[in-house]
């Protein structure tokens, strides 16, 4: 067995170190080693978005990223979205619009939406729909999610 790699990274603002196998995905390390279980595995093949995280400002599927790739990068996960007690406006709008049911897809949608609003604070409805098309939800039918994101965007623009 190969020696484990020692990775130094920043997760949700906290400098973090971990050991991992070369073939371990970032998702596995987040969930199994670091106990950040908010990112979910829906497919492990990059098709459902339940594992969405932001690495160095880019939205990625953590199931398709190797954990070793996190070296010297910054990783943002759902656990870092709220600041303590204060929810992120997207989180608040998801609550207000009842934009979740079973909740498994919710962290992925929130991260994906956050990354959208970071690059485009004023997206059109179809921009939201296309941006979020990589995130699957089997429960809600999406309408409430789209509305929540548009509403949050408006709120954040002030």
């Amino acid at each position, binding site marked *: 067995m190969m020696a484990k790699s020692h990775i130094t990274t920043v997760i949700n603002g906290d400098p973090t170190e971990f050991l991992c196998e070369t073939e371990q995905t970032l998702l596995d390390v987040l*969930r199994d080693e670091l*106990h*950040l*279980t*908010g*990112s*979910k*595995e*829906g*497919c*492990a*093949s990059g*098709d*459902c978005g*339940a594992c969405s995280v932001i690495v160095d400002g880019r939205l990625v599927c953590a199931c398709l990223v190797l954990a070793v790739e996190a070296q010297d990068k910054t990783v943002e*996960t*759902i*656990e870092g*979205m*709220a600041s303590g007690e204060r*929810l992120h406006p997207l*989180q608040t709008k*998801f*609550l*207000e*619009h*009842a934009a*979740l*049911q*079973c*909740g*498994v*897809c*919710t*962290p992925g949608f*929130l991260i994906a939406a956050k990354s959208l609003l970071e690059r485009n604070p004023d997206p059109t*409805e*179809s921009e*939201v*729909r*296309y941006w*979020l*098309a*990589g*995130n*699957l*939800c*089997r*429960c*809600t*039918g*999406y*309408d*409430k*999610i*789209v509305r929540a994101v548009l509403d949050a965007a408006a709120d954040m623009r002030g």
Partner: protein
Amino acid sequence: MPITNDRIEDRSDPDVGASVGRAMAHDSAVAHVRGTAVYVDDLPEPKGTVHVVPGYADIARGRIDTLDLEAVRNAPGVLDVLTASSIPEVNDCSPVFGDDPILAADEVSFHGQPLFAVVAETRDQARRAARLARIEAEAIRPIVAVDEGIENGGDLMPSYTFERGNPALSIKACEHRLEGRFRIGGQEHFYLEGQVAIAFPGEGDAMRILSSTQHPTEIQHLVAAMLGVPDAAVVCECRRMGGGFGGKESQAAQWACLAALAARRTGRPAKIRLDRDDDMRMTGKRHDFRVDWRCGFDHEGLLAGVDLAFSSRCGYSADLSMAVNDRTMFHADNAYFYPECRILSRRIRTDTVSNTAFRGFGGPQGMLAAERMMDAIAIHLDRDPFEVRMRNLYAPGRDITPFGMEPQGYRLVRRIMQRLARTGEYAKRRRAIARFNVAAAEGAGHLRKGISLTPVKFGISFTLKHLNQAGALVNVFGDGSVQVNHGGTEMGQGLHTKITQVVAEEFGVDIGRVRITATRTDKVPNTSATAASVGSDLNGMAASRAAGVIRRRLARLAARLFQVRERQVSFAYGQVRVGEESIPFERLTQLAVEERVSLSATGHYATPGMTWDRETVSGNPFYYYAMGAACSEVSVDITTGEMRIDRVDILHDVGRSLNPAIDIGQIEGGFVQGAGWLTTEELAFDEQGRLRTHAPSTYKIPTCSDVPADFRVSLFEQGRNRMPTIHRSKAVGEPPLMLAISVFSAITHAIASLSSRRLPPLDAPATPEAILRAVAALRSEAG
């Protein structure tokens, strides 16, 4: 947390100040958005947890000559390899008929059927080891499709028929007759959280299992039977599922059994989590069907005789196929009166995974057949299908279903359809679409539009009488906080939220005081699956009864202490009014503890009036009906087969809604899931019986960009269940799925514009390929 939203009206009772009728966020919503809601796979694994991965042969059918597991056993980290012979007692994980082995012994019945399971230190080791089995088997050519099954495989169980009059004769005597055959595809549940369970061996023969299951009681029972221990030794628990949709009703049991078996043999906690591909290969799906239909009608489209023959692919074992196919028959009329009819259902055996429950439970396929017939009639007569539908609706004097009952409350369907046609401007839009299609044809445009408004009338109850019961346990504590536990499971549908509201209402307290705890078989025993849409009907009633017992005890105590009559005690806004005085609820609960009054109670509910007798085809299978209608408009590209849903209007009756936000969520989600079933979701099996669409890369559920941007969903405002259900609400889990039939019908309309009076030969799902085939067929005939 209350939700304010301009689409949602607050219907809570101002005298109580509690929350029944108010839009409230899901009870776990804050945890969901923070990513802290815990699903089975998120729990920290106790030290020493072992991991279980199932293995299978690469054939669909055949006898196993050699199952050589030497290499598997010797692989790194492997602790044990489970086979059929490892099972101490009963090798079965079936819901009813005893025909689903947990691990197949010497015969393979479908591709992906587990033959063994590896138990290893890590999941990765178990997965790698599972690939190392050497299996020699004599493969037999499998029977895969329904048609092959009809010809070679035969029936898995006896067929069943509803018959009235002589439909053959009455059809023959009709001025107009039509017949046809079409196919309806199956559907993968694609719950976002896959199958998962973890088992903890306890002292002696005890076993505790956490499972993502809609049916903890069944798992308790199957694990006990497998291990040869009493039910009382086994506890099954479920806090929440990441989606179920019927796919965790019977299908969760096998994995829980394997985890329990591994836990028993290793003495360590054992966890199993299927990866997505195994999950899709190894678990059952919605039944696919072939429908052969024939009908006779007059020049206005009024039906005289109907003959419907359903043949469904059941797979290799019975699972829930009997009840599923019965429900196809119960809904083969949808909302229409068939004066003389025969509804025949054949349940075909195939060498494929055993098909199972899926939201609607056979009902959607029955309804689709009825609506297909309506479209066929309208196109044949060159009439508006809406008119034909309205004409055939149940009406006074024409109000007996094919199974001999009056569908009570059926008049609501007509009202809902009329209202929706008006608010959705159906007639005007249909005219505009007709003009659009003419212009498109003249200008050689490649888009065609279609519109359709279809009803849903869905029977509520388990058709198997004894399943219509539920229990609940309510504990009130001295500090005035309340704990409720009931037999239903939470899969995202908001059941726990509704139950919390119901209990808060009983005590007139804020919902924040009421805690719901995980569903556990040692708190509420002998429960039914959370299924058939009746989760809140049954468990809500049981919880309200349990809370009612405690409330009456509290009222009696208050009356005694304050020297008033019991009638003068009431609970509202977190206060207890006692005559002229008012004390905080928690003051009274504290007094109750001091006065030695029990603050714990159970409640039980059994739906009254269930008289259905399958043997004699008589009696009433449903307590009431849930109804709604949808109007969908679509655009179809006749050169590529692509389709877009442009607008959807829905009007749905949920009775007096317990929680409008949750109900609207169920309606939207159900509709979109139904639209997926009928348009993009295609299960492809090859000739060797292997499922080729076993991941989301090839199996396409709707995404954000597929659903209509113009999506108008309303609850029927005057809704109130005529039956004394919990706060006069109605079930909402399954019925909305069938609203999506309007999409299929609108696509039919769009394609039909290419020809005159020809029903497009369209099968479901209406994928681009299916649409192109139908377009080509109409064009070649138009020639």
